[in-house]
Structures are given as C-alpha cells and as structure tokens.
C-alpha cells in the first residue's frame, strides 16, 4: 500500500538529495561538462574558508529571526482582530490574503519601487509629512538595505500567520471564554490562559514551517537587491544560487546547499518530531 508513496518520495526527494550530495563532492563546472573530478570535501573546506560564507550565514540569521518574528507578531495581531465581529469582516479576511497570493517577484518589484530613492512613494510621503528630512536610499545603504527587504517579506508573509492562527482561534470553544469571564478573568488573563495554550500547537507548527520557508527563500532578495549593496543582504541560499547559476560552479553551489540543509536540519527534525508526537 505504501509502495507508490515511497516510490514518489524516493524519486522526488531522495534522488535529488543524493545527486546534490554527489555533486558537492566533485568539481563540477557547468561549462566544463567533460571534466568533473572527485575532490572529496574540497568544496566544503573552500566554502567554509570563504568570508562571504560567514557574512551570508550572519545575514541569514538576521533575515530569518527578524522576518519570522515580525511576521508572527503582525499575523497574530491580525488574526485576533479578524476573530472579532465587525462589519465587512468577510471582505477584510479575504483582503488580508492578497500579499500571500502575490508572486514574490511582483512583491519584490513593488517594494523596490516604493523604497526607491528617486521615485519611491515612501520617501515622498516621509518627506511631505516631515518624518524624513530628505529622501533615503534605503536599498543602497548597507545599514538599511536588510531592513528594506525584511519589510517586504514581512508584508508578504504575515497573512500566513494571520490565516493559520485565525483557524486555530476559531477552534477554541467559546464556552472557555464565557467560563473565564464568570470567574472574573480579564482580557489579558483570557489571552494568557486560554488563547495562548489553545494555539500553542498551531503556533509551533506555523513557526517551524515559516522558518524553513524563509530560510530557504531567495527570490525576494534577488529581485530587490541581488544580495547587495556589496553583500549586505546576501543570505546563504542566495550565495549558493549565485555560485551555481552565475559562477557556473555547481559543485561548490551544491556544497553550500548541503551546508544550508544541515543547518536547517534542527528545525526540520523539530517539525517531524512534532508531527509524530501529534
């Protein structure tokens, strides 16, 4: 009974993983197809000796931690808001999904132009309202570029948390809140003792999934900054992509991808463990 599923998993997951591992042990240059010598861990030692790897790793940590925590906070707040009764609630619930439904490339382009130094609407509004003394080249300064791309990914990703947590909120029985009210619990007490415990499972799963997705994603950064200025927004998957795609160095690119997978393994194992426990 399990054979078709196992076969599909082997073809779609296991084979590419094994192939990537095999590539990472060879000197594979795209434009030298006839020569691909076995070099053992050469690609790994070269990657780890490269300062760009460590810069990219640091950027990845900042990117994942900031993006996921801000998405979660905003998504949770939105879910609590959408769980209340108000006019046009159905429309609001539908609209909140829009950023999640847009392709990353479109979102990247929208935010690139909104943050543009010369024509960007955010600079324009900021200067008009007196918040900014003058236009700021948000994506051209290493001090603000990462914040710019994080802003875009937060906007893109918060609906995931909003929708997931909203579903979780609706699964909490209303009687619990009524009983707590009778017992004299305030809003904070109900949130702390009913809402949070009731959502704990959903929150943990959503956080784990989103961490994996954000850690792996590179499309938004690629469109908005290409990893620049310099390497200010270059994350590990983008470093692997540029090494393979632009440099034609598929061996080194595969090694970087394997290293990223190993780093993410902790999160993946937690996710699998949670699923098994449930």
């Amino acid at each position, binding site marked *: 009974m399990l054979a078709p599923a196992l076969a599909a998993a082997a073809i779609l997951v296991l084979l590419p993983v094994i192939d990537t591992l095999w590539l990472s042990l060879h000197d594979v240059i795209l434009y030298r197809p006839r020569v691909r010598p076995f070099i053992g861990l050469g690609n790994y030692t070269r990657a780890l000796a490269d300062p760009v790897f460590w810069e990219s790793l640091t950027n990845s940590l900042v990117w994942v931690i900031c993006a996921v925590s801000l998405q979660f906070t905003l998504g949770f707040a939105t879910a609590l808001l959408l769980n209340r009764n108000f006019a046009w609630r159905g429309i609001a619930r539908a609209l909140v999904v829009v950023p999640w439904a847009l392709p990353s490339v479109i979102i990247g382009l929208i935010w690139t132009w909104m943050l543009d*130094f010369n024509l960007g609407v955010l600079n324009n509004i900021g200067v008009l309202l007196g918040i900014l003394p003058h236009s700021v080249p948000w994506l*051209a300064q290493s001090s603000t570029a990462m914040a710019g791309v994080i802003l875009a990914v937060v906007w893109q990703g918060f609906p995931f948390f909003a929708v997931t947590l909203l579903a979780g909120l609706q699964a909490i029985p209303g009687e619990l809140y009524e009983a707590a009210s009778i017992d004299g619990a305030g809003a904070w007490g109900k949130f702390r003792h009913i809402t949070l415990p009731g959502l704990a499972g959903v929150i943990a799963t959503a956080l784990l999934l989103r961490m994996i997705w954000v850690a792996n994603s590179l499309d938004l950064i690629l469109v908005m900054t290409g990893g*620049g200025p310099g390497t200010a927004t270059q994350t590990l998957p983008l470093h692997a992509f540029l090494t393979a*795609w632009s440099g034609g160095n598929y061996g080194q690119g595969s090694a970087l991808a394997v290293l990223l997978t190993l780093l993410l393994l902790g999160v993946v194992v937690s996710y699998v463990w949670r699923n098994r426990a449930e």
Partner: protein
Amino acid sequence: MKRRTLLTGAAATLAATPLARPHAQKPVTIRWWYHFDDPKATPDELVAAFEKENPGIRIEPENIPWGGGGDYDNRLYTSIIANNAPDAAMVKFNNLARLMEMDALAPLDKWIDAWPGKRDITDDLWRLHTAPDGKRYYMPLQYVVLYLYVRLDLLAKQNLKVPTNFDEFLTAAKALTGGEQWGFGMRGGSGGHDSWMPFAFGTGAKPVKGGFVSPAALAQNRFFIDLHRVHKVTPPSAPTDAFLQIVNNLKAGRVAMTVHHISTANTMVETFGDAITAVPVPRGPNGSGFATFGDGSTCVFSASRNPEAAWKWISWLSTGPNNVLYNKAAGQMTVTTSGAANWTLHPKRFVDATVQSLPIAGVLPNLPQTADFTRVVWPQNTQKALLGQIQPDDMMQAFEKLFFG
C-alpha cells in the same frame, strides 16, 4: 546489356524521385535563439524575407528570456550539454570563453573570408570579434559603444563646454551638482561594469593581465570611486542604481550626465530635444581612452546538423539592408558601413558619438570568469568600495585575482 541499361535507368529514376531524396522537398530547419530588449519586437518580418529568398531553409526562431544575461546563458549551456542546442544563436562576448571551452562553436573564418558582405563591416568590428585563439566564432550583428550623455542646456547655464577629459568632467560634474540634481548618474548596480570601464581604463591601462592593478588603473579607479565618496557628484543611490534608475534620473533632470548607449537616444530626444547630446567618454591627459563595446553577435554551434544553412541565415542577418531591418527591431546600431551611412533610426549626433568611439572601443578579457565578474564580482566589490567598506585598490586586486589568479 539491355538488362543493365534498364536497371541503371530504373535506379536513376528512383534516385530522382522525392522518396529517394526527401531533403530535396523538405526544407532544412534552423533553430535560432534570440532575445530582443523590446518584448513587442519580433523577427517575423526578417524570417519571412529570408525564407522567401531561401526556400530550402526554414527558420525556427525561439525568444529566450534574458534574465540579465544569466538565464539566457545558462539555458544555452544546459542545452549544449543535453545535446539539444539550437543551430545558431545570438551570443555575447562575455560567454565566448565558456562556449569555446565547451567546444560548442563552429569556426566561421572560412565562410567569412568567402562572404561578399565582409568588406561592409569595419576592421574595428572584425578586430573585436576575433577570439583569443585568433579564430572568429562570432558574427557581428549589432553593436553599441558606450558614450556620455550630456545636458547641453545645463552646461550652458554654468558657462561650461562639453567635457572631453577627466579633469573637465569632474569640473562639470561639480558645477552641475546642487539640491536635488547631481552632475553624474553613476551606475553601481547591475550592468554597471560597462560604464565603469571607461573610467578605470581611460588613461592607458588595459583590461589584461596586470592591467587591473597597474598604477594608471588604480589611480583612475580611485577617481571613479571618489566621484561618489569624496566629491558627491552622484545620487546617494548610485551604489545600486541600474539601467532604469540612470535613464529615469537623466530624463527627470535629476542628473546632468550619464554613461549609456544609443538604444536610449530616441527617448532622450523625446524628452529634451536638442538640449541633450552624446559625446565619446572622457579621455586621459595623453589622449588615451577606453569606450566599452557592447556586442550582439551570432554564432553557429558545432553540433548543428546543418551548419551551412545556419551560416546562410546569420550572414544574411548581417548583410546591408537586412541588418538595418534587424536593428530597427533590436534598437541598436547596424554593423554595416552601408547601413550606417543612411541610418535614420537615431539622430545623427548619437550615431556620430558611437562611430567616433569605435577606435578606442574595447571589451573585458575573454575568459570563463567574465560572466561571473559582470554579474557578481564587479557589483559586490564596487558597491563595497562606494560604501567605504573596502578601499578602491582592494576591489581592483579582487578583479585581478578573479581573472588572472
């Protein structure tokens, strides 16, 4: 005897039938990959005209997404590895070395030397289209040479003349900077290496081994970086400004000069009329200069089953009126002397600036690392230097190391 005659006659008749010679009726199909910047432009008119003149050859054009060059190149490499390469394709110098390393290119010398249109293409262009091994694998199809756009009205207000050397350029850039206007629209983002090269190699250094770290190149590169860091004659967004930013800034009057090429001439004239012109990029004190050559070439792949037909197609595209028609779609300059003489696609002053720049036109080293240089190594290091994270000399060391170890 009679029997032999009969058999010979039958064989001859059979050989003459379409069954025995299917190729006599079925035209040869040439798969051709191309890309036009303008998504609305198509080669349909050209293909129809060629097929009418050459009924035995059918052209199958395939518009390949450009993706900054990387997508196009990687699709090309993977198609070659998978034995599914087209017969001919549009190509650029920055992938010549990689394609040579793959033995993917058919040498064109024999055909070029016998081609009647050879003399209609200048020696400068043939020089630039010669590979490091002395052979010619690329056929000139279109070209641009980067020049300097200058707002004449803004210069006139400052009583300045059009800059011809780097000192005059800096003086003009400083005078034209103030408030929300900057003297020079620097391109530190994607594709910016093209407008950086006239500065780095403008006083005699060459992009060859040792050239990137020669005293002339180092000094000129410091001059380039200082335009942003010290003199502040460029917009603060210069480290990441790319094509759209430099063009829009010039059109919006936010910058007074920028380096680009003839493909944007018409839009500039629409905006400014006679108030804008183009001149060759500034030169060094000894008259030396370097104008970046932007090629668009075609090649025949060595794996093509019909190389003669593929050559017929690409040489047809580079012939006088056909090449003019082609470049109307591509928006670039014809490679033919006859076509340039009656060129009406762009105003004459922009054509003159392009043609006058040809003698000092040059390209990056033809090495496999060139594509990585243009897409990753140049922007990363230049942006770091522009932001003060590394010294200008460090970036040149990084370039020399990438190319020559």
